[in-house]
């Protein structure tokens, strides 16, 4: 097992080191790092914008690039939090608490240096976990029949909608809406058009690009327009030589880094608890076990190292269920899965054996990408800091063009540009009603496969709905679903306020609502 994994990884490096793949990986992490730094642009919006541009390139390159945007943005997001105290990217919101006080004391450079090291440590662990865990998961998952796949998807959807931020009920409502949007179009078996309102352009279903750009592009822009104030650049003068932490700072960060890494990798294995929750939990833990918890919030380097390491380890770990089971844990993973499907690749446990170049190439590119990111972030810190000052009023109109042309170019169809406007408007309205639109994408991507497997399971069992609890593996998943619901009910009824996200942050730090 160990040896095969290493041979496969070697093969993966062969794929990832092909010049054009290195180029796509570089473009991905570069763009990701850039949008991570820019206040008001998230990885979700960026991946949606880049998605239509990847249709022309090979699947491997496309996936390397889109994945690079996601983890690259995590590096950039930390810069924004530490130097500007702007928690514009949710996973880095906690980093503000100790990162910004450090900046005010003139140690912002050191905090950034520690961040880069912790990120690399966290990411490396996440990748290692993926190398050894995915093949094991696949061996198990290949034995699954339609009933097991169905219950597993149900578990994924339920975890994705209830464990994310906001009210779990509303999350479930959004997931169901996503499943419904996934139904739009012709029925796979009979060809009956469903929910198309007689519009022929909808017979093929709603385009994932239109949905993602509407929800995470237009709706987000409508929310952020005129909201972001001018950034305070008083502390942003950081040079390369400032990045070096002192010996004492380094000594204190190392254990925190490893604790964060472990927490992050555990969180990654539970679908729905992405990097944001991982970073909150790890900050709370670090504060609890510290000898001087009262000093947290005044510029403790541990308070930067721990959440950053856990964010990155969880970001890489998020790819495990996505790539090995075909079940995305959050909206970003759903988008990446959508990109695979557009390229004609069926996600699921057979992916590793059918497309080893994609799977192992992706893993190898994680290492390459993370090394590129360290190289990009350390000497070029001055450039990233300059980017912080680009005002939002130039950013979003330019993005609007990419939204319009991106949606158009998927099918060369103007109708879809209209679709994206409508989805954006509805998405903004949902945001105003306190719904988080991310689970919509999750439901949308899994919907058609969920229905297909459900129908198949019913056909095989001759209409026996109890098949889901009669098969032992499936019963375990259903049991976990029930446990999840009971847990949510229990937590909500007992103490509605004591959730980890609210616990870790003092009240004056509002968690940003921007898309992850």
């Amino acid at each position, binding site marked *: 097992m160990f040896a095969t994994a290493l041979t496969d990884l070697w093969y993966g490096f062969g794929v990832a080191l092909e010049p054009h793949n290195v180029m796509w990986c570089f473009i991905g992490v570069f763009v990701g790092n850039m949008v991570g730094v820019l206040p008001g642009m998230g990885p979700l919006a960026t991946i949606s914008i880049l998605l239509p541009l990847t249709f022309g390139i090979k699947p491997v390159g496309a996936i390397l690039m889109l994945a690079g945007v996601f983890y690259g943005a995590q590096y950039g997001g930390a810069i924004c939090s530490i130097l500007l105290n702007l928690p514009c990217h949710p996973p880095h919101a906690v980093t503000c608490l100790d990162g910004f006080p450090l900046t005010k004391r003139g140690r912002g450079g050191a905090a950034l240096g520690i961040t880069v090291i912790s990120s690399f440590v966290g990411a490396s662990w996440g990748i290692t976990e993926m190398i050894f865990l995915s093949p094991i998961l696949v061996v198990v998952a290949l034995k699954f029949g339609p009933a097991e796949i169905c219950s597993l998807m149900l578990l994924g959807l339920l975890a994705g909608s209830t464990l994310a931020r906001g009210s779990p009920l509303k999350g479930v409502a959004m997931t169901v809406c996503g499943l419904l949007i996934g139904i739009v179009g012709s029925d796979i078996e009979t060809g009956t058009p469903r929910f198309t309102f007689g519009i022929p352009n909808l017979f093929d279903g709603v385009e994932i690009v239109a949905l993602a750009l509407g929800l995470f592009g237009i709706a987000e822009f409508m929310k952020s327009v005129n909201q972001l104030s001018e950034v305070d650049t008083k502390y942003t003068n950081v040079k390369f030589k400032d990045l070096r932490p002192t010996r004492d700072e380094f000594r204190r960060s190392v254990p925190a880094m490893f604790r964060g890494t472990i927490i992050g990798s555990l969180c990654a294995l539970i679908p729905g608890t992405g990097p944001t929750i991982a970073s909150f939990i790890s900050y709370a833990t670090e504060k609890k076990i510290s000898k001087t918890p009262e000093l947290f919030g005044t510029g403790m380097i541990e308070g930067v190292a721990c959440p950053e390491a856990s964010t990155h380890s969880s970001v890489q770990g998020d790819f495990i269920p996505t790539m090995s089971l075909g079940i995305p844990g959050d909206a970003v993973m759903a988008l990446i899965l959508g990109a695979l499907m557009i390229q004609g690749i069926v996600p699921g446990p057979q992916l590793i054996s059918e497309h080893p170049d994609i799977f192992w190439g992706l893993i190898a590119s994680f290492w390459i990408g993370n090394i590129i990111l360290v190289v990009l972030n350390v000497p070029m810190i001055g450039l990233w800091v300059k980017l912080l000052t680009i005002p939002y009023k130039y950013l979003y109109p330019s993005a609007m063009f990419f939204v319009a042309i991106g949606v158009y170019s998927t099918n060369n169809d103007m109708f879809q540009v*209209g679709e994206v406007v409508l989805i954006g408007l509805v998405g903004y309205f949902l945001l*105003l009603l306190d719904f988080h639109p991310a689970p919509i994408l999750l439901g949308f991507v899994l919907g058609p496969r969920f229905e297909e497997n459900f129908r198949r399971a019913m056909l095989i069992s001759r209409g026996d709905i109890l098949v889901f609890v009669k098969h032992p593996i499936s019963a375990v998943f259903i049991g976990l679903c029930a446990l999840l619901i009971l847990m949510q009910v229990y937590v909500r009824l007992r103490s509605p306020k004591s959730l980890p996200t609210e616990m870790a942050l003092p009240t004056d730090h509002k968690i940003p609502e921007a898309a992850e």
Partner: protein
Amino acid sequence: MLKKRDFYAGGLMTLLGAAVTLDSMTYTLGTLTHMGPGMFPLMLGCTLTLVGVLILGTALVSPLTDNENILPKQKEWRGWGCILAGPIFFIVLGEYFGLVPATFSCVFVSALGDRTSTIKGSAILAAGVTFFGVALFTYVLKIPFPMFRLGH
């Protein structure tokens, strides 16, 4: 009670769920063994209705919070309008006049949504994006969208 945001959120989901349930009845339902196109939407519709009612119910029993307005305190009608109008300009001008006017108008109109924007600044931004955007999409990515055209 009627001022509560969740009340409307739950109500909206209940209505949507009910509409889906009713609409799915018009497709063939089939049996559980041989599910027709209507069965899965019917199940989703019922689930959504139930969840909607639960949200609504929770809203009725929990106390009001400080801010229950649906619209944010600062109404950005200009921003919202301009952002939505941008792609609409793109559709209309793109359909009849080509990619260049479509791009320019889309960026220009969206940019006007910012309170501090000026006609001149927006025009410069729009011209810049048009130049680079059109170069990228026409020459590099080669999408079939003429730079200029007249009529459809």
